[in-house]
């Protein structure tokens, strides 16, 4: 609704985080089309994830986390559907319940003084140790972004870390389907 050169008449709804999954033909340029639509029309991408999901049909799933008012997000969905190789767009938040997960890899600098605390926390969050060399350990943590956020916040309070995050992927939950 805020996409006109003139001020919008309506009260805008509040800005919220939305997870969109977009099924696309896996053809050259398709990711550029999707990203270009966002940048060209001034929409936000908080994170983005692409992988082929069905080898034989040549279809990829793009998971995009964006934020905006419901009007803006509905415009995003409609603009995505105009892109020729796009099969479908699903707004997982709108569907109500969805399951999401992301992966973070964390370099954690460990010393004798913080070792115990670090391992306790990693245990608590079920972070998995992948590599260990001298004073540095690489942990992997997976789960909903919220959970990863909390882990990162807490570990940062203990020691110095370096982090790489995948951004979430999501799928609609089975429970919701059963209810229908």
């Amino acid at each position, binding site marked *: *609704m805020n996409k006109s050169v*003139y001020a919008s008449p309506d009260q805008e709804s509040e800005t919220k985080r939305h997870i969109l999954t977009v099924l696309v*033909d896996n053809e050259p340029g398709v990711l550029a089309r999707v990203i270009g639509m966002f940048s060209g029309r001034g929409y936000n991408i908080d994170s983005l994830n692409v992988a082929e999901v069905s080898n034989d049909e040549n279809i990829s799933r793009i998971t995009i986390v964006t934020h905006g008012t419901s009007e803006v997000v509905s415009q995003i969905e409609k*603009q995505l559907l105009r892109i*020729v190789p796009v099969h479908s767009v699903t707004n997982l938040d709108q569907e109500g319940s969805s399951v999401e997960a992301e992966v973070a890899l964390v370099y954690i600098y460990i010393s004798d003084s913080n070792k115990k605390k670090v391992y306790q926390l990693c245990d608590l969050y079920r972070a998995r140790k992948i590599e260990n060399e001298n004073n540095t350990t690489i942990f992997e943590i997976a789960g909903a972004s919220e959970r990863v956020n909390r882990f990162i916040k807490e570990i940062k309070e203990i020691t110095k870390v370096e982090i790489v995050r995948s951004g979430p992927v999501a799928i609609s939950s089975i429970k919701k389907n059963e209810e229908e």
Partner: protein
Amino acid sequence: MNNEITGAEIVLKSLTEQGVEVVFGYPGGAVLPIYDTLFKQNSIKHVLVRQEGGAIHAAEGYARSTGKTGVVLVTSGPGATNVVTGLTDAMMDSVPIVCITGQVPQHLIGSDAFQECDTTGITRPCTKHNYLVKDVNKLSSVFHEAFTIAQNGRPGPVLIDIPKDVQFASGTYEEKNKIIIPSHRLFEPSPDFEKNKIEEAVKLISNAKKPIFYIGGGCINSGPKASKLVREFINMVGSPVTMTLMGLGVVGSSDKNSLGMLGMHGMYEANMAMHECDVMINIGARFDDRVTGRLDAFSPNSKKIHVDIDESNINKTINVDVPIIGDVKQVVEKMITVWKEKKFQIDDKALKLWWGKINKWKEVDCLNYNNEGKQIKPQYAVQRLYELTKNTKTFITTEVGQHQMWAAQFYKFEEPNRWLTSGGLGTMGYGFPAAIGAQVGHPDALVVDIAGDASILMNIQEMSTAVQYRLPVKIFILNNEYMGMVRQWQELLHGGRYSESYTDSLPDFVKLAESYKAVGLRAKTTDDLDDVINQMIETKNTVIADIWVTKEENCFPMIQSGSAHNEMMLSKGQKQDKKSAEKGKILV
């Protein structure tokens, strides 16, 4: 392997099977194999333009005047970048175009080779879809899909980039009917969804006391039958109707229900009726900012029905009550059926009152201008052009500026597809090549580009094209020696500081025409005007008619940026209130 042919031959074969009669183009290294194949055949005509930008506007003019897809053929690098403006124009105005570009051979892609550019990258945002074809065996299926996509749903430009090695390679040709295009790549409206909404819409219309139809270019894109049905339905309802710049001609100007154009330079009665209506029926228009004016004051008390083939237009800037996604022709046909079946009727008494109110607004006579003296008023020039051409099959194209708006206001269109102007992008330099394209599509019709002195210079090189192909296009320049529309905004919003809007050192347009072996005419006063127009019409050659008009005329009425439909400026004396003028200044 006997039935293998070269990629270049596949290109020509695909075009032929698609029923293409003419290609607008310009050769270069990366398309030589295609030009070589073109040379060896007779079924497709090639029109050689003088700049690629001319080719794509010509293809647009051809497409919009004939309803067919326009085809463009240009080389890699600069050939491709020169068509970017035209692609964007076609995207904004939903014109079906297939544009073929040559590309450097595949092994050179990415090496900054001579005349290499990332054509699909550059044109991605300004095409409906584009392709880089790497496999000669996919070429024919790409072409058939491209034509379908260009025409399907909301039409638009599609670009096919073909590396030179693919043009030389041998492969097999697949026929059109062998190609299956997956449905998600096309537009398929769901009929059930429509039906419910249609009943809801028709009922809303029947309960209206102050209805207005707001008609856009989508009605023209839906084909001539759509215009017929729209007229029929409006007649059944007895409602007033207004049209956007792109929709002119859907309902005839002389139709008793027509209030003419709406929007920034639209009719007072049309804008007032939009402001005060209780039910608005938008068919194939998109609530463009030139139409709505200030959004928070846009038609505040109406229920809104919106028929559009492109779902993204629904609730984009204006929230509507009854959205209907579908093709105008089909939707309006169903509306008529439902209206008849359910024996709907509108409140005649209320409608009469509504028309009474509208007729009062008409009395304002918003197009009135001071027509004294021997100097030609630009409005008068268009009026005379209309009077002297109205009995001839005439296509009007325009450039962009005041002349464009005067053409829209004073030339009366009775049929769709006769009016070709750059609406969404507002591209100066569109009108002349578009006229060339329209003339190619309609060799016996009269085609007139109503031009401005500044705009015409943007693609003047196409004089050479027009003369070469004996295209008797008429360029009717409303010569005010100004970028008039820029000057008008500077007068109204920038204290009359005419920064760079005076066009000094204009060419002598008569001599310019003659230098191309065309005909140049000039009207300096009202005494010359009719003679010049008649002579222009009778001349079987390309003509430039240089019409000297008063220099500082402004185009009214006008809704200034930041104002609402009911805050129209009718003439020079009137001032917009200061606060909204200041706010409006930052807008476009």
